[in-house]
């Protein structure tokens, strides 16, 4: 390794601390926010607001939010569009006519022209709980769990979990110091991997754990010490846990797989996701300074545990014993390494959804396929352009957003505007791979949203507008600016914002 020195970088110290003036409208909004917050703080406000049933029909004014000048103009255009037609304006790109198109790629499927776009429906979001800075952890079993940083004078921040009754917003439990990473809910248990700092004086003694928590009380039922984070892997946690056959199954980055009884935490079995003959394993620990992750993904399907790695190796384990039942290679793209981008698995009624993306000279290509682990068959597969983001609903429908970075021309680059992201949103019926609906590729300023619960599929059209499609193509519009991840659970959209957590009930 060539020796490097830091001398030429030490010139940066202290050179990037100067004050900078943001846009004047941002400064004005911040001042208004400070006046409002400090006024409320002096009244010793409590951190949660009970959304009583009597407030169900009460519309809370949309919170103050950052309003880009273009958003104001776009909002006016959106109102006109609703009045005049049912055309959806996405940053200047119009979507007209049918909402389906035959997907290009390997599977040739008929175009979906049966949908009739309905009129746009404007929905309002209600304030569920005051308190910005909260991130949604999960909504399940009538409980909304959020996480935020809590600060004390000059001390490091700690994480705080809060759980509220979903119907009333009533705070039911609160925990400090647990930083949850991957989370899932199984029956009455919240299963999560965590990182916990031991003491402020010795933060390098941080420990990772796998816990099972009663979601109604916050009490930890059992926990497994996973040891200190591997310094060679940085703060990458293990592959997200799954539940299969009443066992919690967790895979480490080195391919070791373990299973514990869901109720007691007793270790059930351990196994290893191993490479095939003569093929370098993609599961070896990687140097901390570079990463290709996840090197494999895992899901459960019926009584099977399915793992797929970046080389396309599929290994299938018995969830009761951890024994290997089968292994084979998926068709690769012919470039040796199967995927250097996204690698995700999801559980569908008809098989296992495998989403993978590969970098090519033309950009990133996504391959979406459904495999039947019982007979090695590929049920269907498609190729799309762009980096995928997916969510699968219980009915197996798939919301899919593909993201492409597009460069500006040289004139714009002279103005330091190098490019922008574009997104194309689809809702796919997983039994056939057929589009339920699709949108034209459009430009967005902000990160995309990809949600579905099988009845609705939601995405983001503008920085402060969320669109939820129903299966008729009717667009339900919510004028709100989310901060962080959203959740769509049983027809209710949970939206964290700077003002607090809002909910919007979809009809």
């Amino acid at each position, binding site marked *: 390794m060539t020796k490097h020195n830091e001398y030429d970088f030490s010139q940066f110290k202290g050179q990037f601390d100067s004050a900078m003036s*943001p846009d004047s409208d941002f400064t004005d909004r911040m001042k208004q926010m400070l006046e409002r*917050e400090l006024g409320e703080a002096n009244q010793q406000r409590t951190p949660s607001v009970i959304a009583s049933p009597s407030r169900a029909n009460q519309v809370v004014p949309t919170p103050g939010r950052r309003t880009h000048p273009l958003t104001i103009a776009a909002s006016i255009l959106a109102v006109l569009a609703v009045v005049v037609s049912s055309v959806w304006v996405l940053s200047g790109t119009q979507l007209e006519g049918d909402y389906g198109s035959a997907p290009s790629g390997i599977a040739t499927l008929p175009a979906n022209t049966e949908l009739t776009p309905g009129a746009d429906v404007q929905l309002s979001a209600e304030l569920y709980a005051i308190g910005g*800075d909260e991130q949604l952890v999960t909504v399940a079993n009538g409980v909304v769990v959020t996480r935020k*940083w809590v600060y004390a004078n000059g001390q490091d921040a700690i994480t705080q979990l809060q759980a509220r009754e979903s119907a009333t917003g009533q705070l039911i439990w609160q925990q400090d110091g647990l930083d949850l990473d991957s989370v899932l809910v199984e029956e009455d248990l919240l299963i999560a991997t965590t990182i916990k700092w031991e003491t402020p004086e010795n933060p390098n003694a941080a420990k990772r754990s796998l816990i099972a928590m009663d979601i109604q009380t916050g009490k930890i039922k*059992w926990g497994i010490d996973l040891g200190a984070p591997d310094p060679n892997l940085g703060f990458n946690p293990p592959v997200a846990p799954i539940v299969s056959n009443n066992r919690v199954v967790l895979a480490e980055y080195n391919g070791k797989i373990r299973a514990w009884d869901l109720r007691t935490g007793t270790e059930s079995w351990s196994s290893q996701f191993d490479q095939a003959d003569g093929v370098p394993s993609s599961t070896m620990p990687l140097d901390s300074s*570079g990463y290709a992750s996840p090197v494999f993904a895992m899901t459960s399907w019926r009584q099977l545990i399915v793992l797929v790695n970046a080389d396309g190796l599929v290994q299938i384990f018995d969830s009761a014993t951890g024994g290997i039942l089968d292994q084979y290679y998926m068709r690769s793209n012919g470039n040796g390494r199967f995927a250097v981008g996204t690698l995700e698995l999801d559980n569908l009624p008809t098989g296992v959804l495998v989403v993978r993306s590969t970098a090519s000279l033309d950009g990133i290509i996504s391959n979406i396929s459904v495999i039947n682990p019982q007979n090695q068959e590929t049920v269907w597969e498609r190729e799309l352009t762009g980096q995928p983001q997916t969510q699968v609903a219980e009915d197996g429908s798939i919301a899919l957003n593909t993201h492409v970075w597009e460069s500006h021309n040289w004139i714009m680059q002279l103005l330091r505007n190098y490019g922008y992201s574009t997104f194309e949103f689809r809702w796919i019926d997983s039994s056939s791979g057929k589009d339920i609906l699709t949108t034209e590729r459009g430009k967005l300023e902000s*990160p995309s949203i990809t949600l579905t619960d099988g009845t609705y599929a939601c995405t983001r059209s503008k920085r402060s507008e969320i669109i939820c499609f129903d299966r008729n193509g009717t667009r339900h519009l919510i004028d709100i600016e989310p901060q962080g991840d959203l959740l769509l659970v049983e027809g209710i959209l949970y939206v964290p914002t700077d003002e607090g957590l809002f909910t919007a009930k979809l009809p």
Partner: protein
Amino acid sequence: MEIVASRDIDLTPPTAKPKEQSRAESTAALAAAIPRLYGYFYPRIGGNKHTAEDLTQDTLLSAVRSGNAPQSLDELMPWLFTIARNKLIDHYRSQDRKQRNLGTPVDIDDEIVQPGLPDLDLESLPIREEVVATLATLNDRFRAAIVLRYFDGCDIATVAEALFLSESATSSLLARARNAFRSSWIARNGDAS
């Protein structure tokens, strides 16, 4: 089997402390901090204006809602920067988690000798903007390492703690981050050595 215990649950909602400063004074003091916080975030997240605004707003909200703001104005900015630093690390961590699936190929070729960076006239605004633009081309992990170590002057131990790495792994990460920065700088500006 070790049970990971949590602290006893306190269901008492936190309440705000009575303010000794007048509300107008507190508002003015925090408002005066806006350009300093924005100026802290803007270069450190690669020059993304919207993200810098988001982080500035998050920092101010956390500061106000904590109810623990120092009464002394001399202590206010260091306290705000403590919150800002944590917001920045949380942002890096969140970005890393989201981009985890992007699977950046491992750059294991350390044998290429990279010429160093020239002495830069960082008083010049175009040069500073070019540094920020070069930083924007790096992945979040490299960016986090360079910002914490060289922009903020944190020692290796502090950077390691923030990124959950060992000190040796942090040194290795920093070497690769410098390499990546140099490569990008040279690609954008030519080799001035």
